[in-house]
């Protein structure tokens, strides 16, 4: 999303996800001794992580990206890489280089059968929460004034500014939302896979970016479909060929799609005026 609006490949996005997972882990650890209801603990952890990472994202934007908006796009790319490296190594210093484990006793392990597949309630809950967040994001961007301003920004920043849009403010909200969403998925991943590590963000960032490109940059439904497609593709590749080659297959499909449809599956052709 951030990409679509300010045309920046945010390399630090995956690391925000990682920081979210760690904050969620810290909060859960702190609340573990308090015998509070599980649902409340989870919500507190989720909300705190989202808020903290949202603010962190805004801070990063202010310090490292805003001053370079008028400079060459590659120099922003490099500061984004710098931020990513700083977050990874910062997390390593604070949380250590090993894996940390989410508490496993918080979530119900009950499951039921659906068409022959075992589905746990955790999976249902995570799926529902993801859908909710995505629907909320879509509604926000499509139907609120700030969302309209975001879409305007993605077409022409200067024109939006001339129309009275508070460009810096809108970019700030964009980063706040983007960071918050990253944190939410970080906490969910932590709860589900239980193992978190300071390098986990890198691979996720790569996959998220791949999903966005596959779907068509700056297109929210496209990103969702792209994400689904990549997940399915990885699962099939791992299941039918070998898990070692799964990333090769994902990237090969991505390249093939882009060769035949250079703007992604849902991307619109950009017509350039002479």
């Amino acid at each position, binding site marked *: 999303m951030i*990409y679509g609006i300010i*045309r920046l*490949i945010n390399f630090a996005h995956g690391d925000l996800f990682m920081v979210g997972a760690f904050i969620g882990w810290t909060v859960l650890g702190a609340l573990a001794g308090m015998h509070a209801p599980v649902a409340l603990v989870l919500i507190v952890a989720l909300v705190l992580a989202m808020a903290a990472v949202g603010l962190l994202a805004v801070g990063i934007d202010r*310090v*490292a990206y805003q*001053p*370079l908006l008028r*400079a*060459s796009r*590659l*120099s922003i*790319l*490099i*500061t984004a*890489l*710098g*931020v*990513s*490296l*700083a977050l*990874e*190594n*910062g997390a*390593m*210093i604070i949380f250590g280089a090993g894996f940390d484990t989410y508490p496993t006793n918080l979530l119900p392990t009950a499951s039921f059968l659906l068409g022959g597949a075992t589905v746990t309630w955790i999976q249902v809950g995570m799926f529902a929460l993801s859908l909710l967040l995505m629907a909320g994001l879509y509604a926000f961007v499509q139907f609120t004034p700030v969302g309209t301003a975001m879409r305007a920004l993605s077409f022409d920043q200067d024109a939006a500014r001339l129309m009275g849009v508070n460009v810096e403010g809108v970019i700030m909200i964009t980063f706040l939302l983007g960071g918050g969403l990253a944190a939410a998925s970080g906490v969910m991943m932590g709860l589900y896979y239980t193992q978190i590590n300071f390098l986990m963000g890198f691979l996720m960032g*790569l996959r998220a*970016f*791949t999903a966005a*490109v596959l779907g068509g*940059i700056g297109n929210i439904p496209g990103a969702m479909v792209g994400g689904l497609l990549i997940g399915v593709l990885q699962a099939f590749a791992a299941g039918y060929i070998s898990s*070692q*080659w799964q*990333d*090769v297959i*994902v*990237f*090969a499909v*991505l*390249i093939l799609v*882009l*060769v035949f449809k*250079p*703007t*992604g599956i849902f991307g619109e052709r*950009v017509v*350039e*005026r*002479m």
Partner: protein
Amino acid sequence: MIKRAELLSPAVNRFGPLAALVLALLVPFMANLYWLDVAIGILTFGMLGLGLNLVVGYAGLLDLGYAAFYAIGAYTTAILTTLGHLSFWETLPFAIAFSALAGVIIGYPTLRLRSDYLAIVTLGFGEIVRITATNLNITGGPNGIYGIPAPSIFGYHLFSDMSQYYLALVFLLAILFFTHHLAHSRMGRAWLSLREDESASEAVGVPSVRVKLWAYVFGAIFGGLAGAFFAARLTAISPDSFTYTQSVNILIVVVLGGMASFPGVLLGAAVVVGLPELLRFMSLWRLFVFSIGLIALMLLRPQGLWPAAARTREPFRALGPPGDDEAPKISRASGAVAGEPALLVEGLRRRFGGVVAVDDVSFRVERGQVVSIIGPNGAGKTTVFNCITGVTKPDAGSVALGGRPLRGMPPHDVVATGLARTFQGIRLFKGMPVYENVLVGMYPRQRATILGSLLHTRGQREEERESLRRTRSWLRFVGLEGVAGVKASELAYGDQRRLEIARALAAEPDVLLLDEPAAGMNPSEKRDLMGLVRRIQGLGVTVVLIDHDMSLVMGVSDRVVVIDRGRKIAEGAPQEIQRNQHVIDAYLGSEEGAEDDEAVNRWPS
């Protein structure tokens, strides 16, 4: 105001490289083994940076998988020395060939992609190569290959760190030599023009796909050479050396140092390899501090530590004073059929969605004439130009230039056939000096081969000199000789228009299309422009121009074609057009009762 760097530059230019070379030669005598090792690392990254600089710094193609070529070179050398029992030197041609092939394979299908999509595709390619190396038997899987023999010269094995350092230096200097030559040839200028404005570059005659592919191939070759050296030096390689992080590090070398800047790239390599070593005492904090330092450096110097110079002092100094024979001239391209009109447009039609922008437009332009196309805003004039020059594909109709059909040709072939143009919104290569803008315009007329550009052969150097001479004559022709070394974006508006005309003339066209050349000009500039159009006509060039300005159109045109709502409504000599009732209706809008005050005001009374 003169900046300090500009005052320094002549001395730095002359003695800087020499001093740096002497310093580099002395490094083994000053450093201990540890720092010598770091120095070899810096040289290796220098090689990689120089190669990637062609792709990213010059051609402006973002490559996040450059380590793939590094890997291919390294594995080629490793496999051929250990399994094939070739010597290090014998593997080099294979390393070059395989990495070049990889450059074509990844480059060819992806060159149509916009930069961000290109970034992810190259990233994916880099990962594919690395994962493949991790999973194949011949590459030794995750453990890699070891026991690679050290290279030898005349029976002397280059085992010691000092000899490896000098080998690295030789490799670096060779790559520096070739990349520098390429960068200062028609190929290098074409790359820069693509980075600045791809459509404009194509429209002045640069075959963009082929030129981009060459950037990829050369980037790949130099990356492969660096890989071959790397394998021989470490005697063992594994996939861990060719990760995405490595690609990113090489990119940081280029951007941090300064895109398209040779000293910048070398400085960038020193910082990226050297700084983390200097910070080693910080142990855990090392990379954190490095990343903060990286952000700070980019914030302080977004253009890089040592940006490429944007201005050139006295670009024509090497030529000496101009001779008498240096008048601008157009040498005719062969192939025009005698007796055919210079430009013949028949039944041109183009629809955009539901709007027919150009509807059955036909006209002919005789040789040596000046013909104007006029019409209200949105009448379809620029679309006619775009259809003629191959920028837009017409739905129907034909275009012939001196009897040669143009339809279906990409824009750069149209220019090579003899039709050049300027743009309604000025599209110069803004970051390049004025004289290089004109030199890019000569691309379709230049004949230097890739090999010639790589080696700067005698023929290539003579052609460059001749091109520079012609550039001077064209700049004098439009009155810009005095600002030849200035960055194009620093020119005043009217000067930018004239530079665009000079760039188009540099292709020595039979026909020149000018799209609203007088837009935004004041009356005295317009008068100068009329004189310029007549002088262009005097060179034997046929001129077709679009404009709103009636004093200009009526003053210079032999014939006038009027277009309204995509249709040709009148054609004839200027005096006939002024009296034509259809034209007056179209401009006054009496049919609709609509008003177009602007058009009324522009109509000469």
